[in-house]
């Protein structure tokens, strides 16, 4: 089959800073691709790149010569912007109130019979005379879908075609898509990977701007990637509640961590010499740096696990360290995960007990948990899909699941500060993605500020804006 368009070891940079890396992807005439991946993996970037967006840093792009019929957020925004401009900029002699739907539908060289059929099936007939901008979200989507499907352009790109379409219309919409996929080359992007249309032949799975898998969708590997994605798409799930009478912060507005002129050295080696740092509520931080740069020491100063926290000017959660507070006063506001903790957690306990211990900052469970706490733990297990494992021994879970469980343990009390020290260390790509997805979701939680330590810049998380790079210079 002739190559319609493709990328050859292409590195493409976008103005947002996002990069597609080492793309090696060729689409042949008549191919039917599903492009899948989590939020931020680069799907939209890839589609944009097909359309010529972004700057090619290296490699080759074989741009499509055929016209493209596209349904995507980008297209929708462009259309809306165009319409608004027309309305504001002056009077279009033909359309005083904005382009009517019927004209929009004609824009991509449609097959008339097919278009008529789609108008009926998608219930668009009564809207034909209305200005396009006046349509509701669902109606707009259906209109744009009809526009793209009816088009005779050989390349069809559908980016989340079902977004915003009401439940009753989804079946019809899917059916229409199947009907029109026909002999065209189709690129479908959807997060609904539980029900991949049967006409799809190939899968390209994206992660952090690279294609991790491309090949037949019927292959077992493809199924693995899709299953992972399905597990990872937690964006619509709500976090479990907090315990009602949890001890609050002394002052929810003042800095969580305030370090002034901190000095730490081990023997002759100085790790910190005059460090000043402030973490305010809601400010997520990523801490990066090579081994030995002081990341763990920094965290230990906060958690109280370093004796140097007593000899420096540290104010943690309103407690000036070394003035009569107990370490448990501090730890109650912290949820902590590290691969070190993972190793240390060798008490033989059930999964449920491990999560319950998070309420008490203990390794192993030494106090009786309340019913409320047990309920919250069950909800967290459900969130990460492990509620069936509640009574199983913790150390019999897979390594990746153990890590996930420890993160949940750190979160059960929705602490003011969540510290994740290299949470992805030692995890295979599947589990790594699971962990990142969970953390990504946690960044949206208003009550918890995240400190994320990772030496690997590839482990970026969208919601974490601030960065501290160690070792500090000067």
């Amino acid at each position, binding site marked *: 089959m002739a190559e319609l368009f493709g990328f050859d070891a292409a590195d493409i940079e976008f103005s947002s800073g996002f990069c597609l890396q080492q793309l090696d992807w060729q689409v042949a005439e008549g191919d039917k691709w599903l492009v899948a991946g989590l939020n931020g993996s680069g799907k939209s970037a890839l589609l944009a790149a097909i359309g010529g967006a972004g700057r090619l840093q290296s490699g080759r792009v074989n741009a499509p010569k055929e016209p493209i019929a596209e349904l995507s957020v980008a297209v929708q925004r462009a259309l809306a912007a165009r319409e608004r401009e027309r309305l504001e900029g002056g009077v279009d002699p033909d359309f005083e109130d904005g382009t009517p739907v019927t004209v929009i539908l004609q824009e991509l060289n449609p097959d008339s019979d097919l278009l008529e059929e789609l108008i009926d099936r998608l219930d668009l007939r009564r809207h034909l005379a209305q200005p396009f901008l006046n349509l509701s979200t669902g109606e707009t989507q259906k209109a744009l879908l009809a526009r793209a499907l009816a088009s005779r352009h050989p390349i069809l790109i559908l980016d989340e075609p079902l977004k915003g379409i009401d439940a009753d219309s989804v079946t019809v919409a899917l059916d229409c898509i199947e009907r029109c996929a026909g002999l065209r080359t189709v690129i479908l992007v959807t997060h609904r990977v539980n029900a991949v249309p049967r006409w799809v032949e190939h899968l390209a799975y994206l992660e952090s701007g690279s294609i991790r898998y491309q090949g037949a969708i019927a292959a077992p590997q493809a199924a693995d990637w899709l299953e992972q994605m399905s597990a990872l798409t937690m964006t619509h799930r709500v976090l479990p509640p907090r315990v009602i009478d949890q001890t609050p912060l002394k002052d929810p507005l003042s800095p969580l961590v305030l370090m002034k002129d901190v000095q730490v050295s081990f023997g002759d080696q100085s790790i910190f010499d005059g460090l000043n740092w402030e973490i305010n509520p809601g400010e997520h931080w990523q801490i990066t740096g090579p081994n030995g740069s002081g990341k763990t020491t920094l965290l230990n100063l906060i958690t*109280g*696990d370093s*004796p*140097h926290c*007593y*000899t420096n000017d540290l104010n943690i959660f309103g407690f000036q360290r070394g003035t*009569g*507070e*107990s*370490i448990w*006063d501090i730890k109650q506001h912290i949820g902590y995960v590290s691969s070190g903790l993972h190793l240390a957690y060798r*008490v*033989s*306990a*059930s999964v449920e*007990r*491990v999560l319950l*211990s998070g309420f*008490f*900052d*203990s*390794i*192993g*469970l*030494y*106090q*009786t948990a309340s019913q409320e706490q047990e309920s919250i733990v069950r909800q967290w297990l459900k969130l990460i899909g492990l509620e069936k494992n509640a009574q199983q*021994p*913790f150390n019999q879970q897979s390594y990746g699941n153990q890590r996930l469980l420890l993160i949940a343990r750190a979160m059960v009390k929705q602490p003011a500060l969540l510290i994740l020290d290299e949470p992805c260390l030692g995890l295979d790509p599947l589990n790594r993605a699971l962990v990142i997805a969970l953390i990504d979701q946690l960044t949206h939680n208003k009550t918890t500020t995240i400190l994320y330590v990772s030496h690997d810049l590839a482990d970026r998380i969208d919601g974490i804006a601030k960065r501290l790079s160690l070792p500090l210079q000067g």
Partner: protein
Amino acid sequence: MANYFNSLPLREQLAQLGTCDFMAASEFEDGVSYLRGKKLVIVGCGSQGLNQGLNLRDSGLDVSYTLRESAISEARPSFVNATSNGFKVGPYAEMIPEADLVLNLTPDKQHSAVVKEIEPMMKKNACLAYSHGFNIVEEGQKIREDLTVIMVAPKCPGTEVREEYKRGFGVPTLIAVHADNDPNGEGLAIAKAYAAGTGGDRAGVLMSSFVAEVKSDLMGEQTILCGMLQTGSLLCFDKMVDQGVEPGYAAKLVQYGWETITEALKHGGITNMMDRLSNPAKLKAAGLSDSMKTILRPLYEKHMDDIMTGRFSGGMMDDWHDDDVKLLGWRHETSETAFERESISDEEISEQTYFDQGILMVAMVKAGVELAFETMTAAGIKAESAYYESLHEVPLIANTIARKKLFEMNSTISDTAEYGCYLYNHACLPLLQPFMEPLSTDVIGRGLGLNDLGVDNQELIRVNQEIRSHPVEDIGQMLRGYMTAMKAIG
């Protein structure tokens, strides 16, 4: 100075020996608040000194250290320990006058010298705390009347005290208030706050007395904890090698065997340890244990008697004055034994194999624990005290042998324990020689190797009944139950 215990009338002796009560968790609701804002100064910075200090500071208390001038100026390990952990360190004259609570965590041998130096510097109505009662009871140290004297003794090595605290738990702890020194009646309140500061309240605190603690502690460490394990190691190793077992294998069986066997003891007492054996092996072990108890009872009684009369401590203090000539001599001898010098084999030994091939070792633990317990309780020590100083601590000592054989054990335990252990060893070895003579590798080294594991029903019932009904099992179940109720295991 004269032995304090010997100066007491009999009824006082009995009363103090027989004190050891498990305290309810509700008694510790105030946590460390009695000591908040007070100045705690720790004398010495060894294993207990450092680790207790770390816990107390993390509990919110004001902790600093004081050491001898020479330790500071020469930057000795104690000085380095304290300063590298961010603690203030100063000489006695600087730190003691300001202290509200002075924790004497120096080695036994130094106690009377240390107390003599610091007592005059302590401010009025301050408190002096010990983690072991030797100085007060055996040496009969008298303390200024206005000072409160208490004891807080974690029943674990210093490192365990710290590790369990960090885990959010603690280790079982004994507390006591010296009858002669509680002028303001606040001794108990201070002791409870101190125990809470080390995390002891989470694992269980026992209200005891200086006398009970010392007499039972000395007995336990000399006879079963260090004594039997050391003697047993040498006897078992020599027997195996003598019977043709590969020396490297024999050394490994002994080194890790104690730890493996006593792990079962830790979780379920002698009952569980014996249940780990096959039925025929259990019957064999019971028989061996019975024989050893008969042979060794007089020795155990002698140790207990010498401890009670003060003869043991007197003899040891004489050796102190002799520059520890005996202690050092025996330490050297031990390092030269064949067991100690043998390098262990790489061969994998499964957990159950340690039981199956270590029947004699199981019997030795059973015999030693039961004898120690029986002898202590017969001498007026309460079952709780006897339990902690016999069965409870065996696994902890076994851990040290697993790390680095007898060298590690002797380095970790106090000099007092080490001295007592050698005394025991010297008497026990010859006593058990005739017993060991006819034994072969079926009970140590190779296992019974039976195809038919059948036993006589009546015999098995009788032996099981005997094991389970021993008083150490009764009190053990109860105390382990308290500890696990406080430590809900998964």
